[in-house]
């Protein structure tokens, strides 16, 4: 088995320290950082995603794999940046104003990072304008909004309207999610997508930005 396959398999098992060591070894063996990323880390994470969708593995295993992904990504990021390889896309993420729930939003952030996206997590209780301000300031192409309360869902509409009002529609896409949030709600407020769980959110964001590597 080659070192890149070893990285992928180690990542699937969620062995973060082992992944870090293997990525270092692969770089020492003169594998290109992009090759290590795509044929090692991303390949392993793709298998994790497939097994999760097939219900062969579950959330804890996916999160451990994601942490292992970070261990490798942390080593590769500076090298990829030096070579001018862009990240998949930048996503601004947060729970909307009035909502202090953040577990779902955190899981989406972890999965997005694991998929290679650059995630700016604004935390919870985030005012509508802040999502848009930060997206503009940091050049994000996607805003991800989470709400767990029906009372806070209207803030999602405020964000969509702000994106339009500032002439960003089409350049900055909005994806919404959370227990009470539905595809119908996303359509009603004019959001670009709805993610029904963390794994689905990654797929939807990938589709939005056409960023699948």
């Amino acid at each position, binding site marked *: 088995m080659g070192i890149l396959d070893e990285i992928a398999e180690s990542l699937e098992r969620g062995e973060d320290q082992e992944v870090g060591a293997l990525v270092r070894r692969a770089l020492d063996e003169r594998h290109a950082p992009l090759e290590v990323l795509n044929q090692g880390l991303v390949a392993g994470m793709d298998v994790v995603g497939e097994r999760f969708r097939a219900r062969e593995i579950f959330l*804890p*295993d996916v999160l451990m794999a994601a*942490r292992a992904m970070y261990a490798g990504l942390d080593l590769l990021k500076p090298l990829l940046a030096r070579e001018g390889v862009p990240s998949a896309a930048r996503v601004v993420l947060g729970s909307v104003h009035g909502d202090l729930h953040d*577990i779902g939003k955190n899981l989406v952030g972890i999965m997005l990072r694991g998929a290679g996206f650059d995630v700016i997590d604004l935390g919870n209780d985030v005012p509508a304008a802040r999502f848009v301000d930060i997206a503009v300031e940091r050049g994000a192409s996607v805003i991800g909004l989470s709400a767990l*309360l*029906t009372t806070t869902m209207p803030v999602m509409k405020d964000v969509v309207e702000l994106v339009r009002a500032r002439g960003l529609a089409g350049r900055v896409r909005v994806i919404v999610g959370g227990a009470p949030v539905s595809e119908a709600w996303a359509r009603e407020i004019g959001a670009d997508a709805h993610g029904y769980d963390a794994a689905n959110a990654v797929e939807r964001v990938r589709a939005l930005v056409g960023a699948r590597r």
Partner: protein
Amino acid sequence: MRERVTWTPAEAAPSREAVLALQGIPPRGASPRAEGLLDRALAIHLELAEPRAIVGAITRGEFAEVYRGAGRNAPETPLECIVPRADGLALFAATVGAPLTSRIRALFAENEPALAAMLDSVASAAADRLADLLAARALAEMASGDRVRVLAYSPGYCGWHVSGQGALFAALRPEEIGVTLNASFLMEPLKSVSGVLVTAAPEVHRFAPAFPFCADCRDKPCRARMASRAA
């Protein structure tokens, strides 16, 4: 009559099955590593949980006022049919305390997402268990306990708009046990539950989950609740 109730963390500890179900893991589906995470999360629960509740009996007339709340309930709801036939009603609020929520956040910040998510599920399942413990306690106090069932109904579910938390809190005053409400009607600490305990014959609790709002309810937990023998 209002009453404060406390439990030990062990009494409030949820079953492994309940926690794994919240993680989307079917029975016997957890990997050894997931089981290990669950052990660690349950140990943290035993260390940090501060389970407590406040409960107060309420008449049907008083509850009608609370239930009306800010007038944002669905046009037809199950509780409107259930409450007039209930033998007893009690408002309640219960929490597993703030330290667990703080620990969950800290674990995410420490790049321990799998343990953080597992602890979140432990805390959620523990909060649900507190409502079950209160229901079981109310049932035990009934002379005719074998002929009735006590079930908890909460704002935010089954057509009872979450804004109903405002009237519920005004009537129950759970601030006394450290549970507060923000402007979005969100309870703090986050891992808290509130609602009304309804004591009634089992058939009174039964309804068809075919209300318009049921279409937005993914899991339809009411089915299992209505079918369960417990409480």
